[in-house]
């Protein structure tokens, strides 16, 4: 294992460390609220794992600076002048026209991958992991809320939120079920 590897992969290792801490909390702790906390940690570290993959060295956030974006808006504004309110212009042609006007403006700036290092002034990190993880975070809070609601109900019915005590109560109340 070389030093280069260590510097290239340390982010994954830290994230795995966090993930395993969350995993440990989930399997070792019997308190349900603590389990949900562990799941939350696990989820955050998975999000971090994806986000580290999207990073490009020397890159910046995938938000186009206003000047460059304005050029595109203008090129579209010109289109407005030609077509006016007419929405029946052929869409394929429309797209071609805009992209021709647009590509020249962006070509020097918005490059990606290998050419990025040489040709471009601005490199953008990958927006795709960000989008996927946005979805994951929001779904995560929805499921967390649901889990906590269930825990509240369990706590009200059993008087405890410890897994082993709940199992004990269940066994005491239904001895026949255990026998069968």
């Amino acid at each position, binding site marked *: 294992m070389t030093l280069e*590897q260590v510097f*290239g*992969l340390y*982010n*994954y*290792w*830290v994230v*795995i460390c966090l993930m395993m*801490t*969350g995993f440990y*909390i989930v*399997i*070792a*702790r019997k308190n349900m609220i*603590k389990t949900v*906390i562990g799941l*939350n*940690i696990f989820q955050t570290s998975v*999000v971090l794992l994806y*986000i*580290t993959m*999207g*990073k*490009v*060295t020397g*890159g910046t*956030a*995938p938000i*186009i600076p*206003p000047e460059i*974006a304005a050029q*595109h*808006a203008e*090129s*579209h504004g010109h289109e407005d002048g030609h077509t006016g309110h007419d929405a029946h212009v052929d869409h394929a042609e429309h*797209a071609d026209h*805009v992209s021709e006007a647009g590509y020249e403006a962006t070509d020097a700036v918005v490059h*990606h*991958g290998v050419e990025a290092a040489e040709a471009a002034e601005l490199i*953008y*990190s990958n927006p*795709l*992991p*960000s*989008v996927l*993880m946005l*979805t994951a*975070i*929001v*779904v995560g*809070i*929805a499921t967390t809320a649901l889990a*906590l*609601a269930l*825990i*509240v*109900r369990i*706590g*009200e019915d059993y008087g405890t*939120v410890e897994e082993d005590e709940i199992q004990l109560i269940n066994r005491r109340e239904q001895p026949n079920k255990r026998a069968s």
Partner: protein
Amino acid sequence: MFVSLFILTLLVVTAISIARIRDLWAAVMFTGIFSFLGACWMLILDAPDVAFTEAAVGAGISTFLMLGTLALAGKKEKPTKGSPLVPLIVVGVTGAALIYGTLDMPHFGDPNSPVQTRIQPSFVEKSQPDMHGLPNVVTALLGSYRGYDTLGETAVIFTAGIAVILILRRSSTEAFGSGSTPKKGSK
């Protein structure tokens, strides 16, 4: 580099203290701190949208929800009886397997990794002509290219909201009555 190493150290320390601490109240607070540190690191990793969401959702609403649950279901965690050896072994083996898996991964920030090169032209290039100069590529991706996905996500939130109402709302006689009936009475 040093900032991100500092944040990563803090993240690991916070995670381990959450695992060790018995007081659930403190654990919930540490979870909020953990989310916030995670958001800081995401900001360094050029994902301001995700960092924003994580700070608002993870450190804000989620902490609040857990505190609300604690108030209803007890604040102390009972000490675990069994030895922590078996979970530690499981976690160690899983972690070792995952670390072995990372050895083939592209290095951090590598512009030639498959993540960066697979989709050509990239979404950043494509979105400018497509969106007529919408500056935030993440919003464009979320709303337009992955519009169905976001629709499904909204549906998930909707469903979760309905489910929480079904689980926690009191029976119809006192339902929301607890808020609205006294109000009517007072008028």
